[in-house]
């Protein structure tokens, strides 16, 4: 357990969008049970997966996320009766769109994690982190963001340097 931790050349950034009633509580349970998982994940709490706009996923990729996890209550268990069903439909369509745009769907994962499934949360997060680590950084959307900035202000030092060189 306490063996020398392997050093990786690349640490992916994972953003998790979770619902407060099931997955957030499941992640809390993983904590109270002192389970261990990679520290790459950042959790954003929503009342319900139904609240999660696909735009947030795009925004996350744009802001440098290498992997995105969306997780909520199991079908039928939604605290808000049916929010997760709406989410499921929405993301089924959204995945198609992402695939069409050319995003590797392995970077985007949906899973149901209930408040009692601390172990599953650890499993899901660990799997996604390792999978994305193997895939390497996600650059496409960041470049898009940079292009957007180019038309406006010069934000990054690289761009400033390039500008000055002209």
């Amino acid at each position: 357990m306490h063996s020398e931790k392997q050093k990786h050349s690349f640490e992916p950034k994972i953003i998790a969008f979770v619902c407060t009633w099931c997955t957030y509580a499941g992640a809390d349970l993983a904590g109270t049970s002192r389970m261990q998982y990679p520290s790459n994940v950042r959790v954003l709490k929503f009342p319900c997966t139904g609240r999660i706009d696909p735009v947030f996923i795009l925004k996350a990729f744009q802001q440098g996320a290498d992997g995105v996890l969306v997780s909520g209550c199991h079908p039928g268990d939604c605290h808000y009766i049916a929010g997760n069903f709406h989410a499921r439909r929405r993301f089924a369509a959204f995945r198609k769109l992402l695939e069409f745009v050319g995003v590797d769907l392995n970077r985007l994962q949906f899973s149901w994690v209930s408040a009692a499934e601390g172990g599953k949360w650890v499993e899901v997060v660990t799997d996604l982190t390792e999978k994305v680590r193997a895939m390497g950084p996600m650059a496409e959307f960041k470049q898009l963001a940079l292009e957007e900035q180019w038309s406006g202000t010069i934000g990054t030092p690289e761009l400033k340097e390039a500008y000055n060189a002209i």
Partner: protein
Amino acid sequence: MSRIGVFVCHCGENISRTVDVERVAAQVGKLPGVAFATDYKYMCSDPGQNLLKKAIIEQKLSHVVVAACSPRMHERTFRKAVESAGINPFLCEMANIREHCSWVHENREEATVKAIEIVGMMVERVKKNRVLPTITVPVTKRSLVIGGGIAGIQAALDIADCGHEVVLVEREPSIGGHMAQLSETFPTLDCSQCIMTPKMVDVANHPKIKLYSYSEIELVEGYIGNFQVTIRKKARSVDEDKCTGCGLCMEKCPIKKIPSKFDCNLGMRTAIYVPFPQAVPNTPVIDRENCTKFKTGKCGLCQKVCGPGAVDYEQEDRLIVEPVGAIVVATGFDLYTINEKPKGSMIKGYGEFGHGKIPDVIDGMTFERLASASGPTGGKILRPSDGKEPKQIVFIQCIGSRAREKGISYCSKVCCMYTAKHTMLYHHKVHDGQAYVFFMDARTPGKSYDEFWRRSIEEEEAVYIRGMVSRLYQKGDKIVVMGSDIAVGVQVEIEADMVVLATAIQPQKGADTLAQKLGISYDKYNFYSEAHAKLRPVECATAGIYLAGACQGPKDIPDTVSQASAAAAKVMTLFAKDQLEREPIVARVREAGCVGCFYCKKVCPYGAVEEKEIRDRQGNLIRVVAYVNPGVCGGCGTCQATCPSKSVELDGYTDEQIVAMIEAL
């Protein structure tokens, strides 16, 4: 400009062991907008909270981020503390650096970096938080109870005894439900009628209970504290106010051969009838389908003999609107009619057991009526076919229940116990008879239940055979039951005089339609879903609606009564205040942007979205926009993610807040 205060908690050593809290406070203190950052050993303790309050006042803080445990643990604590220092509680956020950070990572450097990012994220979020007022809605202190079985009766009496008015609606002509049909009840073998009928009379005489029998729910509108319920009072053809309950009409009615539903078709009733002698109200009802007067226009005998002139053939259905603040749903169960596959249902029938074809194959409820002293045989166990006393009787358990391949996977919970009771009742009445029971498992969890079951074997000589029956067929006047005894590993063949099937418990017919009227959720079997299986077992996810009894899942009488009293307690909790306070995490429509597509209305699970008309000063309609009723909104935010014009926002989870968090990463 915001002046944010950040308070990082050590949680004893729970956080500081893996997270360098001083470094977190120092780093976060440099973020724009953060005016004050500190760390403390126990933020949730009294000195910790005082530190927080003092800092708010001294540093003139506008927003607060507490980096500590999960918000599920202490968000309320800190929001209260912040409120007492004069800041709106919704301007305080918690950053979870314990459950989501220090407890799940070992590397101090990694955990510290993560903690800084988590706190940074919450700082960006809290900047966009808005002052949210507490929402209050008035409460109508009357309640509706749907279903007049033992669950509904118990709930109604409990609420009414507390001084609140109750409207009790029952579909059948009399209250009492299934419990009134039972002969004796396990595990004490006390007579069901003896404990049930006094309660029914209490309901009828209670000044705070308004009873609508032979009535159904037509429409439910409104929200917690403020429901408007339309009740359809079906035409009884007898004026309840005039009728004295003398029963002369029933004596004189010439149509006497209608199978009685109450007696499971074993007994007969007249066309003008009360379902059973102890009925409440004791007012007859005319069965218009079978009455000669309604079929041919002739007869009219009951009207002629009625002294007070209560019989009224012209009576029509009436619609009555009742305002109530809470609803208890107690619609109960029905037994699975196994002889055929219901149309369009996932459930397959049990044609192989000959129920409905072989007259001496009956279900458990029919056996109850046979054993009941007030039943069609006066309490004698007699075969329906020829009226002889059965000397060999076979009980088969788990008919319908626990059979995934047939469509029902759940256990009906009460059958093991009532079958044990049946063997006892049988043995008490037919001393030289022998009872056999085919069973899969005997499930007897409950006070004195297992002792009761053992008694049926050890003292009442019932023979239990572990195994299922494969086939049943009529041979002369016997029924041959073929099954296997898996404990011994042999095939068993019993020539029985009568077979009793312990058929599965199902929700009442029409349970799904009622659920849709109420806006509550139900599972694939049509049992109503509770808000939380363990912690909110009597509340629906829809606020202001509570569940009692077998409509939520199979239950025995003690469990049903407990749940009914629990539901009544929940109603009384709601009625304890004049105004209802609730979390202001609700959706709000930006009317300027709303195009009136009403996608939000389609996805709203609570029916909280209404159509609002915008008119000019001449009263001309300009356009129709969405309006979210804050009393009904549950705060899921599905509308916001659906809105194509981004014109609806969930307070506390606005796009601005979320995007600020993502951008902070």
